[in-house]
């Protein structure tokens, strides 16, 4: 399972990087979303996988029934998912506004430098 997950992480990273390098705004944003998913999956996998045992304290035992999945990366990833949504939403409307204001349809036209 770990090797399978590593392959999925690698595939998602590759796709995300490739999409971020596209000049079309929508593709860049989709790339951002995929890259976020890849990172979340990486953090989740790095803390070891446990099938079918959520980190919940059994009411009768007063403790979880070991082995359980590690709760710490889950808490981190949960935060990350929500924050990533905020970032994505903001990026999306920002690109929309930029496209409308500059009337440019690709990122190479939306550029300014100091020189």
């Amino acid at each position: 399972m770990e090797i399978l997950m590593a392959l999925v992480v690698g595939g998602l990273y590759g796709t995300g990087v490739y999409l971020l390098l596209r000049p079309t705004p929508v593709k860049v944003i989709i790339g951002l979303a995929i890259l976020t998913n890849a990172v979340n999956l990486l953090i989740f996998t790095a803390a070891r996988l446990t099938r079918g045992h959520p980190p919940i304290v059994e009411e009768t035992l007063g403790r979880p029934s070991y082995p359980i999945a590690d709760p710490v990366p889950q808490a981190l990833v949960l935060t990350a998912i929500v924050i990533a949504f905020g970032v994505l939403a903001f990026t999306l409307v920002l690109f929309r506004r930029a496209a409308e204001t500059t009337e440019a349809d690709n990122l190479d036209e939306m550029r300014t430098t100091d020189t």
Partner: protein
Amino acid sequence: MGYAICSVFLLALLAPGLTRIAKPVSGWLMAALPLTLCVYFLSMLDATAGGLTLQVTWPWLPDLGIRLSFFLDGLSLLFAVLVCGVGAVIMIYSADYLADHKCLGSFFLFLNLFMASMLGLVLADNLITLFVFWELTSLTSFFLIGFDHDRDKARSSALQALLVTGVGGLALLAGLILVGEAAGTLELSELLQSGDLIRQHAWYVPIVLLVATGAFAKSAQFPFHFWLPNAMEAPTPVSAYLHSATMVKAGIYLLLRLSPILGQTALWHGMLETVGGVTMLGSILMAIRQTDMKRLLAYTTISSLGTMVFLIGLDIPLSIAAAISYMLAHVLYKASLFLITGIIDHATGSRDLSALGGLFGKMPVIGLVAILAALSMAGAAPFLGFVGKELFYEVVLMAPRAAPLSILAALLTSIFMVTSAALLTVRPFFGPARSDRLPHGPVATNLWLGPLLLAGAGTLAGVFIGIIDKSLLAPAVSAVQPGHSVKPLALWHGFTPVLAFSILTLASGIAVYFRCDWYRAWTENWSRRHHYGAETCYERLYSGLFTIASRLTLIIQNGRLRNYLLTVFISATVLVSSTLLWNGGIRFPTVWTSVNFGDLILAGIILAAAYVTSRVGHRLVAIVAMGVIGYGIALIFAQLGAPDLAMTQFSIETMTVLLFILIFHRLPLFSRLAPRRAMRFDAVVATAAGLLMTALTLAAVSGPTDKRLADFFAKQSVPAAHGRNIVNTILVDFRALDTLGEIAVLGMAGVGVWALLKLWPKERRKP
């Protein structure tokens, strides 16, 4: 002594206010303090003449060995007296000279700041303290050269002076730090005892080169000389004070001060002799070409500074006395001549030597003062300049190396110096009068008083050279050469070869004066054909720096997102993969979680969807594929004991897809913009990055793991947070503040989204 410096700094701060309140007497107000300080320093003459030194130390950065420490011996006393004495004269003069200028207050502010810094420089004991004051004089010089800041030329000259002396200052700082490291102390008073230690140190050569660079840049020695003529853009009192009497002497002071520590080696003597010799002869040849009085004075100043450097470099005991007498004479006559130039400029509206004439009848006092100063400059008896030049010849005739060359250079320099003195006085005062270039009215007392005092002092010092030598010059010389007994100076040495040289110099100088126009025409012709020099070099460097900077910026900051990202991804991939390969980081897990058929299907769907997003040409399909990836990951979370993650991922992914679909029809269509080659290159980079991440994931799951945090939360979840879902208790209890922060971030993102969607400028409101 420390309070003396502080008091001038304080006066600088009060200067603008005082000038506003009492403008008519502001010059005298400003002069009161330097006069007092001058008397104070003169009162210590007896102490230093007896060989005593005074020390004051205030702690500053004791851990780094940096102290605000000052000491006074014969040499610093001479310079301090000059700084305060000439300073007082300049203050009185400036108040009248710049009476109509709207910024007289800030002029006094900068001038007093400079005076305080210069005093600090010559009194400093600690080398770092010395350096700080050294740079402060450069800074104040920058402000004073660019005082008429609405003129382009003034601004660029100020910047040039600052850059040249600033580069020298950096070299000096490096040199001084090396001195401190080599000797183990930064205090000059202690270093004076440890000259042998430094001369034998492995760093001796870099120390000498760095320190000398700093001194040469400050004292306008070749090849740094070009900033000084340009600095003549400053108001004339500034030129008189900073750029002839004091600031440019800082390099001379430093060389004199350090010659017991760094001197007496072939490198020291050879370098100072060569640079000083080239400077003194080269710039005096430039001087007599000039028709602007101030530029002529500037070039003769460089030449005199060159002579001083040359004399300090000569390996003869008498040469230090010669350098110091030459310097004192130069300060007195040159400041006086500068101030007279300012008066002529004000009165006639011109300082062009070819346009001026017949001024003696209109301003006889000024004329007499000018003649006194010019005679001292020419080295005629009985002026102080005569003593300086006699010593110069006496020392050069004993030169141990390259004597014929040195004698020739000295002779030519002195001859042309006589010519320059004649150029400055003969035609403007006694030449044919020009009706349009005659003074409008009488010259104010405050204006002619200063030059008179300075030129008078030069004359009296020449006549009473015995007294001046005993009280002022000899203590300064013995501070540089402890233990040497130098024979007392005198005006008359009898009929010696030196006297013959002096007479020859005067006669030839006057002869050259009558041939001067021919020389000017010849050099004019020559310089029209040859355009190279240190200044051209500086300008090329200066503009080259800007060209390189803008080209570099265009490469690094090209405005293309793809290039920025490629830089990041390629460097990260290459660096991390090479480290991984180098250190054997590629590992495979030994303990596996089991895989079932459903997982394989799920991974296949995710990877297929990912491929679709990167290849498809339709936006809606790409968005749907993105949603498939998100849902797939949610299912993985659900399989692997993370129901909370799965639920969050489901709802967020749904919202993301909805948001995309709401917005995307307003975004530009997909179009194939990138050329095929670029796409292939990106695919290679992306594949490499993906492979690297796979390897990193495998490496991460192969190493040992730490479950202490997980155990802590599992144990504490119920007793501390009263919740059975451990992930929930972590989020809303153990790390509640983090979650609050996250909510704030989301809130701000929401406000931003709303503003970007709804707020438009009035004239183009969107539906």
